[in-house]
């Protein structure tokens, strides 16, 4: 199926129709930089249904001793990138905690791929997202966010620790850096492309 699969005579302008939305998910544990990642590439300030944390959540969402973060994403943040006149990319930062599992299917339905953000000092926080993406066979990449002043692991160490398939890319990213976030998205898209090519040759 192609973008303009509707039959129409040659030479006539295509009927006015909305662009195609492309959805990718930016997932990972609390405080790992999902919103920062979305904001680095988005053409709009990330939109949000974010609400302040309640005291009931303290201890559940432990952002670590070094974190100044006092609120968490209880719904989702997202940003928009207009690719061309007929494709608009939406990046949805998705809460990575188990207790938001009720949202996952809605978020993932129709998604082209996912980015799992990893904080090397709290590796286990990404496992829920990894498990979910694997269970629905969504193409994904692992992006290790570099936090200034925190001890870092090599990408090989992270790969070994999170135990992903050898063909899953594990890359480093500074979530604040637009070019680096762009590179992560491109890595994901190339993985999606490789899968599409493999399937078309079957």
């Amino acid at each position: 199926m192609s973008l303009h699969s509707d039959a129409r005579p040659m030479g006539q302008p295509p009927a006015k129709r909305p662009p195609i939305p492309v959805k990718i998910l930016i997932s990972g544990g609390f405080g790992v930089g999902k919103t920062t990642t979305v904001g680095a590439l988005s053409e709009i300030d990330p939109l949000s249904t974010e609400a302040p944390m309640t005291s009931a959540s303290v201890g559940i969402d432990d952002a670590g001793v070094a974190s100044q973060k006092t609120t968490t994403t209880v719904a989702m943040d997202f940003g928009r990138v207009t690719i061309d006149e007929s494709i608009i990319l939406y990046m949805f930062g998705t809460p990575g905690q188990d207790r938001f599992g009720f949202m996952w299917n809605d978020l993932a339905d129709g998604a082209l791929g996912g980015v799992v953000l990893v904080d090397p000092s709290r590796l286990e926080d990404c496992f829920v997202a990894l498990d979910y993406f694997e269970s629905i066979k969504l193409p994904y990449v692992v992006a290790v966010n570099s936090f200034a002043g925190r001890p870092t692991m090599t990408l090989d160490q992270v790969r070994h620790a999170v135990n992903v398939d050898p063909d899953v890319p594990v890359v480093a990213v500074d979530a604040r850096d637009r070019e680096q976030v762009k590179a992560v998205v491109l890595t994901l898209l190339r993985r999606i492309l490789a899968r599409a090519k493999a399937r078309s040759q079957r």
Partner: protein
Amino acid sequence: MSGYDDYEDEPQESFGRPFLGREIRLESEERFHNTADDTPGGHNRPYLITGGRTGGGAANIGIETLLIYERQVQPDRTWSTEMMMIVRACDRPVACAEVAARIGLPIGVVQVLAGDLVAAGVLQQSASSASLADDVAFIERLIHGVSAL
């Protein structure tokens, strides 16, 4: 029996309507109470304005589905305030989630009402990109576009 019974004794002020928007008020408390009394579980406030329906409905509106206002359709007095807010937010193609964030309604409510508006021919909805996941040409175009950002 029903968990909703627990709300029966709450003082009237506590019937917050967080999802009706800051500027919107119901016409009267009486109307609200009638609705609540007539409808089991009617205290489930956000979905009062969807008639209790949830999800994208037959139109299958996803959170990323783009919506655009069909300008040849004139606003109708029968549209609810929330429908008008949605229509106004769709003056260019905009994702359902973005509409919800901009007008301050829960995404589930916008999905239902947008589905109604699509069914009524007021809004046009985009196709899903899910079927394009295996379209090599489409993915290549996407890569080209992101590279050029």
